[in-house]
């Protein structure tokens, strides 16, 4: 999906070191200057600490920060490894048994769509004291963004390569070792890069379920105590670490990957699939999801006071005497959230795509814009959401901006890569007719970008749901995020579980809807992209 976009984006920094290396420095300086000025202007508002104050805080409390960072980073790393191994394992199953792919991705999507606010306390009960929930939430946050690119990558090799292996009389194992794994590596690295900040966020939210120490623990403390230096200090450290891991994986990828991967425009569909297979898969996914839900409650012997099964949720929503009231409460909350989520989602998509186009037209600013974009995306939303809402108000704008930030970055990276995938031969033809960069952008690059854009738009659905529920839970106190937190504290577990089911189902439905739009749009504007 987002394969090597970063490599290409960062390439100027490497290749033309002399000129382009100035870019990131300029970007960083601009941010610091703007930040310092804003903090000085807003000094009485108790929302923003200047970089100088943050630095002072970090120097004075470096031991505390280092210990907290060590704990959270350790949990995030464990979750990162487990989640990515799980993704590789699932991709392996789908490869060996192609018929299972639809079911695997469907189930994986459903689990990925489970809201953190609700899974945290359940994991805490399952694991008891210790780092279990932190590691699990970190793993949950990463596996899906690795699985999907990997599934594409494992098939992203020209047919002639497979023919070559076959002509030597070798079988599927050789194909896997010599062709598929090599083709998949860039996709794997792209997934790992996106996963790094996500794992850190997951580990921090896991600490909200009751932990002795860590960055998440300190975040709660800082926000409650109105300690703006500490809050921004934590945000700075978390962002810096996420950016460093992101860049480290990028560097590793460039060392490991010898050649640019062959450009495969379309996602090759698994062979021999028919239309009705999709519906069978959806039914299988529903059946397996309901089965494993009820099954784990039985297996772990969870108390019916807080562990509600499919039957309980159905009763609460349709059969109980207060079913209509329950539906009304959840429906209202979902509407409230949708009002924030939908504009934020589209704002993020449009900003991401436009910035990617702008960078394609004016490549000189890539070096400045890219590190800024990475940094913005790596700021853990749990640290800054309450402050951003304080800063720009708890009206619609604060939430919409935060949702847009979560959506913007993956879209931007994907679009940047998509724009660069314009077929060279077509570009040469346009060149020979002396077409300008704008014509090339409109007629060649944008159609080439569409699959990547839609892939990002699909992945952005769960991301925006995560953003809106976290902001509502921690900052604004409205919508479905707040309803879930409130029903947990009031032991209204029927409403909690029903909300979880509806949020996950609606997220998966939104994902499917974007897929449907994608097929219609590609059929009209870029039919060659449909395999």
């Amino acid at each position: 999906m987002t394969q090597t976009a970063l490599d290409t984006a960062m390439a100027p920094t490497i290749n033309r070191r002399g000129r382009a290396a100035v870019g990131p420095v300029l970007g960083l300086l601009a941010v610091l200057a703007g930040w310092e000025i804003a903090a000085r202007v807003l000094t009485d508002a108790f929302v923003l600490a200047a970089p100088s104050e943050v630095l002072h805080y970090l120097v004075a409390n470096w031991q505390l920060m280092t210990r907290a960072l060590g704990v959270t980073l350790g949990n995030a790393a464990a979750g990162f490894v487990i989640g990515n191994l799980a993704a590789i394992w699932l991709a392996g199953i789908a490869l060996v048994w192609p018929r299972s792919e639809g079911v695997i991705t469907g189930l994986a999507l459903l689990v990925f769509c489970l809201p953190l606010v609700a899974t945290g306390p359940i994991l805490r009960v399952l694991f008891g004291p210790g780092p279990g929930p932190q590691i699990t939430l970190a793993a949950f946050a990463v596996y899906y963004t690795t699985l999907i690119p990997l599934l594409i990558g494992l098939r992203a090799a020209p047919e002639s390569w497979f023919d070559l292996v076959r002509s030597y009389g070798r079988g599927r194992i050789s194909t896997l070792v010599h062709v598929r794994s090599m083709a998949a590596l860039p996709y794997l690295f792209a997934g790992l890069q996106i996963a790094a900040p996500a794992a850190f966020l997951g580990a921090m939210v896991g600490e909200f379920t009751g932990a002795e120490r860590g960055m998440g623990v300190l975040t709660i403390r800082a926000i409650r105590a109105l300690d703006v230096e500490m809050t921004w200090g934590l945000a700075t450290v978390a962002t810096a670490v996420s950016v460093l891991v992101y860049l480290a994986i990028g560097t590793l990828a460039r060392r490991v990957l010898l050649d640019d991967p062959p450009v495969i425009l379309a996602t090759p569909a698994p062979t021999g699939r028919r239309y009705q297979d999709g519906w069978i898969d959806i039914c299988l996914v529903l059946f397996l999801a309901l089965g494993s839900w009820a099954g784990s409650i039985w297996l772990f012997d969870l108390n019916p006071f807080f562990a509600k099964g499919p039957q309980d949720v159905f009763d609460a929503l349709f059969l109980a005497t207060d079913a209509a009231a329950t539906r009304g409460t959840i429906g209202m909350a979902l509407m409230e959230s949708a009002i924030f989520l939908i504009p934020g989602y589209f704002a993020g998509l449009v900003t991401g795509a436009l910035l990617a186009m702008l960078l394609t037209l004016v490549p000189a600013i890539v070096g400045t814009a890219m590190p800024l974009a990475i940094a913005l995306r790596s700021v853990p939303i749990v640290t800054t959401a309450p402050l951003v809402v304080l800063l720009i108000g708890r009206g619609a704008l604060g939430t919409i901006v935060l949702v847009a930030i979560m959506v913007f970055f993956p879209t931007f990276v994907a679009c940047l890569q998509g724009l660069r995938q314009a077929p060279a031969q077509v570009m040469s033809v346009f060149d020979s007719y002396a077409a300008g960069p704008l014509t090339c952008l409109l007629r060649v690059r944008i159609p080439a970008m569409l699959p990547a854009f839609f892939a990002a738009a699909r992945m952005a659905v769960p991301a925006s749901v995560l953003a809106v529920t976290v902001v509502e839970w921690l900052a604004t106190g409205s919508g479905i995020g707040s309803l879930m937190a409130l029903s947990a504290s009031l032991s209204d577990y029927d409403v909690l579980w029903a909300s979880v089911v509806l949020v996950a189902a609606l997220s998966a439905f939104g994902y499917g809807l974007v897929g449907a739009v994608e097929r219609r749009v590609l059929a009209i504007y870029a039919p060659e992209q449909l395999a």
Partner: protein
Amino acid sequence: MGPTLNRRSLLGAGTAALGAGAFGLATGRPALAQTTVSLQLSWLHSTQFAGSYIALDRGWWSENGLEVSLLPGGPNAPVEPPVVSGTALVGISAADYTAAAINQGAPFKIIGVAMQKNPFVIASLPDNPVNEPADLVGKRIGMALANTPVLEALCTLNGVDIDGIEIVPTQYSAQPLLAGEVDCLLCWETDLPVSMAMQGVESLTMLMADHGYAVHSQTYIATDDSLANRRDELVTLMSGEARGWEAYRGDTDAAARLTLEMHPDAGLDLETQMLQAARQVPLMFSGLTDANGFGWWTDETVAANIETLGLLGQTVTPDLWDRSILEEVHGT
């Protein structure tokens, strides 16, 4: 862990062993020892639970054969599930949350009341003060919308028209008051006013408990099953709590210092903790506890609680409070 072997304890032991083996994440707690129990706290470590730290530090539990681990809470850590599932023997909740859980079918009893007075206050600034409920009329109050029933109950108890108050939904922070977006805040006596004091802003607080809002807070809850079958452990646990909190009362500064010493990674500030510890004392101790001992209640205080809980939409009976453990602790 319950004494009987069931699917979860088997699975739990399995996953725990796997986890510990694979990642070296053992918590250092001897597994499945009969005398090991957990106390689930309602929030992150702070002087809010310093009485428990004193009991732990001075060995008042271990000398009676009980090894207690104190499990920290957090914003996403409801207390009731670990108590129901047996992860924790006792949890620290509040009468309103416990009542809600009971009405959802949880088998709980309140076995002790640490905060005799509910810590909810209306905090305001001296130049625009809220000294009594009637002063709220015409004011903008910053609060979480989820706490609207609390304000409604206060208004009903004091004959104030809630429509005369402008509710501004804010997150739990003193910032909106300091920035002048609201005139007062609905918060706890022991947190936002303390944060403001540490920022050099002296605020006024009107304790809602002084105006009829009777909801026991920081209550100890245990399941009916534990009350029937694990009485000795409950008595030892509560006895250590009572001793710890009496010692806390004797020297709150020392209690704050111990809190920081035992939890160096909690990011606590000593001065803030000392102030919080001192402000907590009047909420926890009263003539009632002086006469009968830590955690006590009477039929009258329970009746007042039932009335306020009724205003909050929770119907409960006096059975929710079970004083038998405290009676054993205090030898009455």
